[in-house]
């Protein structure tokens, strides 16, 4: 492609004076001569009659077509700095190209074509047209294709070459959709770079727009569309930044809240610990105050009240602590039937055995809740195990294990091992407890209730009596055998004795023993 191009460059600004025009032309020549390999080029002056005198308004020269690109660039730069309306005329073989402009941008397209070396040939003409079309809408529309087809025929270019040229004009992304997609991807990549670089800190994304605009130009994507895409991404980016900021604010608030809660929880725990410590102190004090008796002395009561107020313990809590301590010191008074065993405990503490026995009856009849009627074989099972255990524990505690239901059960078991038939056993049981004397020909051995032994010297299991299952007492104290059996069975259910291996007895010995005993 070593064709020569004839160029004519002429200043056409009507506002410039003659001498200014001459100066401009001289600068132009100097500028062009500065370019590489241009020293040999001969610049012929182009003169015109103006204001009577003939002045030089332009230059004419001939260069190798390959130089055209750099010449155009220099010319463009000149226009960029000093936009003087200028007429450019290029002639290559029989094609003339004439441009009259003062804008640098108009030379850009020409420059690209020149650089590709295709300017001023049928092929380059065609390509220029195709590229212009491609640039306007980003792709070749059917009408444009039609136009190009006509141009191809006029320029006498083969269809295959035209196809190649079309593809070249369209660039690597032939349709607008593809251009958009590519641009979109690039913009996205750009913004993701921004995101990763400026984590958390929003930056002015204006900085990237000029480069992107250049990319759009290079791609042949119309600027408004490119800008719309860019704005879209920008909006998303800003939204992201804002969202992130909001999330961070939320997270900070949440963190603050959690920290507050943790602190509150800590405070609560500390307070709970303190309360517990206070309660423990109060409990210790209760221990000291109750060590001397069931109830604190007046002096100790005063100290307790003071301590309670000092440590901020609620009266209800104080009472429950005191009750717990009292139970611990003097035996629990649990009841499943709502009976208060406090009085019984007090009486047993005072070793008031007879009064305690009477109180035991009252408590049991109340626990039975049968209109204070004596316990029968049918009703005994309604006595709650808890209440029986409480009564037993209290009697046992204050008699050093001598009295109580357990002691009575033990007596019964020992009798059971010795004696054979039931009547004998019951008799033996009652005699063992000291509830009945040896029957004689004169009496059947019954003892009236008030003749029983209400002291620690009484036989084991003598107390509490089972007066609560007797309709009558003064005439004689004798629970009916049927009831005794039922009561023992119930006791065995409620508080079974530890298993003991029953020794086997020699039959004859046992019979003989019983015979001699009765």
């Amino acid at each position, binding site marked *: 492609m070593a064709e020569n191009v004839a160029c004519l460059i002429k200043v056409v600004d009507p506002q410039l004076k003659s001498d200014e025009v001459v100066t401009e032309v001289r600068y132009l020549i100097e500028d062009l001569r500065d370019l590489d390999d241009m020293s040999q080029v001969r610049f012929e002056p182009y003169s015109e009659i103006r204001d009577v005198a003939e002045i030089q308004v332009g230059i004419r020269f001939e260069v190798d077509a390959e130089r055209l690109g750099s010449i155009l660039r220099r010319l463009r730069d000149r226009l960029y700095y000093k936009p003087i309306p200028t007429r450019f005329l290029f002639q290559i073989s029989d094609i003339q190209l004439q441009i009259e402009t003062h804008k640098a941008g108009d030379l850009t397209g020409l420059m690209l074509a020149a650089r590709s070396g295709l300017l001023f040939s049928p092929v380059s003409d065609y390509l220029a047209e195709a590229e212009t079309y491609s640039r306007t809408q980003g792709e070749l529309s059917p009408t444009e294709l039609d136009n190009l087809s006509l141009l191809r025929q006029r320029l006498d270019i083969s269809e295959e070459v035209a196809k190649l040229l079309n593809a070249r004009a369209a660039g690597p992304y032939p349709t607008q959709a593809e251009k958009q997609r590519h641009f979109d991807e690039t913009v996205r990549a750009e913004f993701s770079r921004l995101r990763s670089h400026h984590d958390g800190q929003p930056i002015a994304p204006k900085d990237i727009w000029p480069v992107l605009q250049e990319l759009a130009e290079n791609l042949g994507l119309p600027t408004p569309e490119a800008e719309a895409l860019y704005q879209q991404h920008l909006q998303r980016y800003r939204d992201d930044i804002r969202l992130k900021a909001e999330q961070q604010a939320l997270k900070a608030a949440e963190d603050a809240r959690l920290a507050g809660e943790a602190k509150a929880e800590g405070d609560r725990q500390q307070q709970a610990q303190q309360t517990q410590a206070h309660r423990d102190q109060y409990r210790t004090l209760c221990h000291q105050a109750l060590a001397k008796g069931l109830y604190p002395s007046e002096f100790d009561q005063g100290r307790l009240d003071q301590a309670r107020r000092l440590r901020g313990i609620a009266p209800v809590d104080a009472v429950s602590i005191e009750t717990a301590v009292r139970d611990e010191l003097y035996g629990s008074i649990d009841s499943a039937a709502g009976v208060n065993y406090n009085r019984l405990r007090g009486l047993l503490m005072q070793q008031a055995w007879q009064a305690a026995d009477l109180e035991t009856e009252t408590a049991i009849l*109340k626990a039975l809740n049968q*209109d*204070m009627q004596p316990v029968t074989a049918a009703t005994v099972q309604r006595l709650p195990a808890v209440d029986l255990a409480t009564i037993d524990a209290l009697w046992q505690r204050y008699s050093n294990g001598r009295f109580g239901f357990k002691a009575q059960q033990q007596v019964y078991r020992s009798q059971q091992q010795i004696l054979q038939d039931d009547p004998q056993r019951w008799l033996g049981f009652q005699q063992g407890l000291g509830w009945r004397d040896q029957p004689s020909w004169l009496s059947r051995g019954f003892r009236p209730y008030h003749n029983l032994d209400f002291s620690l010297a009484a036989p084991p299991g003598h107390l509490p009596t089972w007066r609560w299952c007797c*309709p*009558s007492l*003064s005439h*004689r104290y004798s629970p009916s055998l049927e009831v005794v059996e039922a009561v023992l069975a119930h006791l065995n259910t409620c508080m079974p004795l530890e298993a003991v291996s029953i020794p086997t007895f020699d039959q004859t010995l046992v019979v003989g023993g019983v015979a001699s005993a009765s």
Partner: protein
Amino acid sequence: MLASNPRSELDDSLSDLALLLYDEEWETADRLTAQLLLTAVEQSLFSHEAPRRPELTTETLAGIPCQLIYAIDQCWQGASGGHFGFSTQLQIYQETLGSAAFDPALSNWSTPHPFFEEVGWLMLFPLRPMGFLRFYNWLEFDLEAPRGHLPALWYWQLPGLASLRMGGFFTGQGAGFGDLARLDVMMLRLSRCGQLGGGE
């Protein structure tokens, strides 16, 4: 137990009793008192036993509702200013138990229970100065009578056979020895009901 149905009937009887006592009809009131107790026994029998003639025995006395005892006692106490009534009798009984050296195991012809003497139920009969009780219609039905003298018919009303065994002749408790077991059952019942704290 008081059944719910004859509740109003019982209320009527109790107000009758209160009226009689207010009018100082002591004997009639005493008979009504015994009748009230018998009715209660009858009701408790009906619930779980074959119907038979109600009697105030050791067994049945032990089951008389506390509420009824309390109501009757309130009537007597109120009308007599604490002179008559179950609680007065119980109080005397408990005092005598504590004071007297009395052996219930012995047969009691020589030494009657001090309670009988205290409430004036003993026959003051020169020929037989022993522990026999008066005939019922020899009792004193006025406020001049000793403390705890009334109500008395609940104790006198005995089946014929029991009367004979006690030394009477189909006269209930009259002219017989006092039946200590029955007395004690009633007193024990009164004392147990007293633990309920009175009334409901």
